[in-house]
């Protein structure tokens, strides 16, 4: 399968196989007018399989969100057909309005305008907790 290389844009590489659609949704890529290629289950030397997203435009990407969903992703910034910058992600210290706190006793459950902020409390295990009530996010969040 051949997909054209991009001239100016972003390549999200080494996405854990199966996670590309989640990233497509969270980064709201459907709102873009440019060409976007989602490659699922590409062969990977490291992981066996991986997903790749190619975006044919230099957009601003929320790297914190991306790092939270999959810290293994490599972000390649392509300019004039060559990789101008390569960024390796890690779990961000905090994520804002990415996860929703589902604890009915949390202040965020009654004050709608408050941002939902989660802080990384265990980098090794990748555990986040709500800054207000310290509850862990639910899996589906």
């Amino acid at each position, binding site marked *: 399968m051949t997909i054209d290389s991009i001239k100016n844009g972003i390549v999200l590489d080494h996405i854990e196989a199966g996670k590309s659609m989640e990233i497509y949704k969270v980064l709201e890529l459907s709102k873009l007018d440019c060409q976007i290629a989602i490659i699922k289950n590409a062969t990977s030397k490291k992981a066996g399989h991986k997903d790749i997203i190619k975006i044919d435009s230099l957009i601003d990407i929320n790297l914190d969100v991306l790092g939270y969903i999959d810290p293994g992703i490599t972000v390649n910034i392509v300019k004039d057909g060559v990789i101008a910058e390569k960024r390796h992600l890690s779990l961000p210290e905090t994520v804002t309005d990415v996860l929703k706190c589902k604890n009915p006793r949390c*202040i965020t459950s009654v*004050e709608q305008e408050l941002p939902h902020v989660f802080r990384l409390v265990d980098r090794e295990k990748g555990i986040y907790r709500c*800054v*207000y009530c*310290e509850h862990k996010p639910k899996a589906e969040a």
Partner: protein
Amino acid sequence: MKDLISITDLSIEELQELIDKAEDIIENPDKFCDKCKRKKLATLFFEPSTRTRLSFEAAMLELGGSVLGFSEASSSSASKGESVADTAQTISCYADIIAMRHPKEGAPLVAAKAANIPVINAGDGGHNHPTQTLTDLLTIFREKGRLNNLKIGFCGDLKFGRTVHSLIAAMSRYEGNSFVLISPEELRVPGYIKKDVLEKNGLPYKETDNWNDMPELDILYMTRVQRERFFNEADYLRLRDVFILTVDKLADAKDDLCIMHPLPRVNEIEHAVDSDKRACYFKQVLNGKYIRMALILKLLGIE
């Protein structure tokens, strides 16, 4: 440090500084009687808690300051739909420091971010209640002269009792402490406290459903089984009566055992125990006022 939201906001050094200040206040009350002259404490109690509110108010009055506030949400603008952040910002214009109790977890943190004056968490739902933990630490320090190398028994509702969870977390930061967790099986300490606090810090603990460890305890922390936690009245009544501290159970206990209870009690400590010199729970109440005085001074930056 601007605010006190969680007991973990305080380092070991800051905790000791507060304890030392409280002891100074106890020994030299006259030195402190005008320290907060012209300062105002706002007690914002979105749910009633007479004991905690009066302790804060007594603390401020004893420092020569004055108090204002409300004692339930219905008498505040919250009943009109005002946000916690707006309330806190408004009160910042009137008072110098806020003590806030709220039924929702994290509300005092929201207030602290919005207010430009110090905010003290006076209890947010079942989440944090750091001034109760400070009270407990001051009591232990005054009775035992140290916060390390102690064997601490917790008895009663160890599942829902947030004072228990906070005190276990606080005492885990000191060397050589060990814990005996006495409760019916249904009311044991939650798994995350055992895993994330006790086991993570390598602290010895034992779960038991009897009083056999009494002779070895330095501290016995009793708690109330809370009726509001049960859906079934029969379960409540059954569990409430499992562990009742009576005079005869103290026969083999150490002479210098320190018996504590965050109060209010229902029936878990027999009244006859009150006259035992080892009963410290009413001293604990008094210590609560002194440590709050120390905290108010610290947050207002008054020496």
